[in-house]
């Protein structure tokens, strides 16, 4: 297969995305699910940053010497998305901690069993 080097970042994005999704779906351990979610989200962050990159562009900070800047919009968007991701992870971990306190386990199938199969 002929892999275009210019699309290298996107290949990484796809691999991370699928790996993250797979982890979320296949792993029964709640912490691993959160890790999977994080990987999934990071892949999207990468996608945004990659598409904002302008060849030979510098970071979008005003400078006398620079010729081209990368698109600052993508960085700004992803900054927001990262914050959202952090918040989600925090809430997820907090829930995991409380689930561990309430059930004594973090394994999804055991929790379902303790809930009576719902």
């Amino acid at each position, binding site marked *: 297969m002929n892999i275009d080097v210019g699309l290298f970042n996107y290949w990484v994005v796809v691999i991370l995305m699928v790996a993250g999704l797979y982890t979320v779906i296949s792993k029964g351990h709640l912490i691993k699910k959160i890790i999977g979610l994080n990987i999934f989200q990071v892949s999207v962050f990468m996608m945004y940053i990659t598409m904002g990159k302008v060849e030979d562009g510098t*970071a979008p*900070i005003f400078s006398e010497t620079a010729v081209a800047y990368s698109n600052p919009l993508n960085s700004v968007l992803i*900054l927001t998305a990262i*914050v959202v991701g952090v918040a989600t992870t*925090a809430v997820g*971990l*907090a829930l995991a*901690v409380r689930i561990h*306190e309430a059930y004594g386990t973090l394994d999804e199938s055991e929790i379902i069993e303790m809930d009576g199969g719902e």
Partner: protein
Amino acid sequence: MKDHDILRVTAKALIPLIFLFGLYVQFHGDFGPGGGFQAGVIFAAAIILYALIFGLDEAKAVVPPRVLEIIASLGVLLYAGVGVVTMIKGGTFLAYNALDPAHPTHGQHVGILLVELGVGLTVTAVMCAIFFAFAERGRRT
């Protein structure tokens, strides 16, 4: 870890520097890389470091959780407050130009600084609160 002198001394030396760097990132954000988010995390890092070295109770004495809640809310209020002020002054929500109609650029400076300050406050408080919330759990059980 209170007994480790090296850690204590290093931390005492580092924490002010971290704060200083945080302030730089916070208020230099409109010229260079930086802003409220990053600065907030840096501030929080300083406090978390303090908590790690000197213990949770010491840290809570410095910034009680109740204060964190208030700071977080104040940050949001500051942010929203700027928006409200711009509306009162005749612009749309967060239209900084309206802060100083005679010198729109000046208005923008003031506006972005205040908003970023709000963001910084909230992020600091929330990061610390998250840390405290998790750190506390282990001790209870």
